């Protein structure tokens, strides 16, 4: 079992992470990757039917605590579903539209477990890890509020532990 967690300003290279993940054992049958990108459009919090162009995004985090929380999230995931390797990379600092913001890569014997772990880790990253997102919408700074859909996504794993 190989777990790698990075919180960093630098960009990451999907191909390098994939190569590293799949080289760990020849028993791997499935590799799932999730990459989050910065969209150029942010829905307004008070009016989800409209939106504004995103100029840039700033990600703040709590060094030390963030890494520990992500490690706990990943540990819980691999206890639920067997895996060979999990890599989590979360960028912080100033990001522009189309930039990569988060990576989750999972290897396992069978695809079901790899998909579950990737989804579980993403749902918890959105709602448990100590990141705060501030958007710049054409000059106006705004701290992002948590999304109801993210809270519900994380809650589904506790309601139905086998799902």
């Amino acid at each position, binding site marked *: 079992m190989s777990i790698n967690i990075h919180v960093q300003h630098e960009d990451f290279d999907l191909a390098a992470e994939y190569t590293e993940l799949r080289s760990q054992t020849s028993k791997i049958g499935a590799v799932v990757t999730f990459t989050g990108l910065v969209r150029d459009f942010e829905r307004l919090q008070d009016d989800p039917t409209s939106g504004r162009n995103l100029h840039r995004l700033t990600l703040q*985090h*709590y060094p030390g605590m963030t890494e520990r929380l992500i490690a706990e999230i990943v540990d819980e995931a691999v206890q639920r579903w067997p895996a060979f390797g999990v890599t989590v990379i*979360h960028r912080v600092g100033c990001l522009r539209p189309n930039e990569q913001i988060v990576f989750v890569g999972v290897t396992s014997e069978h695809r079901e477990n790899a998909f579950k772990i990737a989804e579980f880790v993403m749902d918890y990253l*959105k709602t448990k890890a*100590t990141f*705060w997102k501030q958007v710049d919408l054409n000059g106006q700074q705004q701290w992002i509020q948590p*999304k109801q859909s993210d809270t519900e996504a994380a809650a589904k794993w506790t309601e139905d532990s086998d799902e």
Partner: protein
Amino acid sequence: MSMINLLFFGRLGDLAQDVNHSITYDGQLRTPEQLVHQLEVAHSKLVAALREPQVLVSVNKIIVKWDHPLCDGDEIAFLPPVTGG
């Protein structure tokens, strides 16, 4: 002189810009709740935000209850709802 360090994240950091983040530990100050009360006199807008039910407090990077005992040298962080990913 003993000190306690305060960290404010996200929206709370904006509101706390004029707060001294390293405050004297004077023996009267025994819990995060008492700390917020002490800030309340001078920083009413920040304190209103700190008192919102979804704001969490951590001591030395562990989430704690508001009546958690404080010690000299503690790092106390105020955490609004997180929005990573």
